[in-house]
């Protein structure tokens, strides 16, 4: 469906630069991991608070708002560096099953995180909040495991 997009991306100057460089991919990969780490920390704190496990959950989701900086930096970093990593061989990624799973899980994880961020505080039932926290964390873990599988399969 998006083959044209990946084909066009492979013909960009940036994609050529990543392919021809011995260090650009490695540097982008490290920043991808930095973003992943920051996201991991943000999710642990934010979702534990949403589930009222250890953290209190201030009315109106003040804790989530306070984590906006790391949430935006981490999510933006993961997406930006992820697009950078794909540049090394866009069509290979296009045909990679693990990559497709990762994109699917990533899209669902972003929706779940967005919902938890925007609407989480308004959910009165603790059980529902805990289920939402568990679902969000599971989706991000699935995206992470699929991402790791790209390099292994």
């Amino acid at each position, binding site marked *: 469906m998006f083959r044209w997009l990946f084909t066009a991306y492979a013909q960009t100057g940036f994609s050529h630069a990543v392919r021809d460089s011995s260090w650009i991919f490695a540097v982008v990969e*490290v920043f991808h991991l930095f973003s992943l780490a920051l996201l*991991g920390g943000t999710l*642990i704190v934010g979702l534990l608070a949403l589930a009222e496990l*250890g953290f209190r959950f201030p009315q109106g989701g003040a804790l989530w708002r*306070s984590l906006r900086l790391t949430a935006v930096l981490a999510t933006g970093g993961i997406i930006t560096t992820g697009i950078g990593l794909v540049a090394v061989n866009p069509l290979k990624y296009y045909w990679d099953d693990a990559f497709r799973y990762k994109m699917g899980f990533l899209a669902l994880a972003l929706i779940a995180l967005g919902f938890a961020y925007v609407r989480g505080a308004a959910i009165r039932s603790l059980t529902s909040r805990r289920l939402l926290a568990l679902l969000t964390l599971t989706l991000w873990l699935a995206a992470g495991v699929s991402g790791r*599988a790209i390099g292994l399969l």
Partner: protein
Amino acid sequence: MSVASVAAVLPDLWQVVYDTSWATAIRESEIVFPVLETIHVLTLALIAGTISIVDLRLLGLVLKDEPAAEIERRIVPATWAGFAVMVITGALLLGSEAAKLEHNPAFLIKLVLLVLAGSNVIFFQFFAHPKLAGLEPGRPAPPVARISAGLSLAIWAGVIAAGRAVAYYH
């Protein structure tokens, strides 16, 4: 035992570990090694992430309305649990690749950085932690805590970078 004699024995130890049956089994398995590696990488990201949140709070960049000591107290158990998983998976991965990692500069840098991270935790516990008790929400952390937090962020960024570089020196 002198330093020279310890240094002479170390390469043999790497080889002995590398040749054990469990190390060979992990190395030759198509499933176990990648699964351990995936758990190790994800756990490292979670540990570095939770530590980063504490560090960023101490630097006054996030969770400013939450008491710093409370944030640290809540997050540290999760960090230690993750650390235990990371050490176990790391030890198993190290054993299976011991003979190859012995001369890997990125791996040696990662080990040094992990020692520095541990030293920074001890420094924080002795010099910064006592000053956090009673610190009101919204108040900046004392300079010694902010210095330790800045060092922590830099060291863990280094651990991640060195950890990833291990594969490039294989």
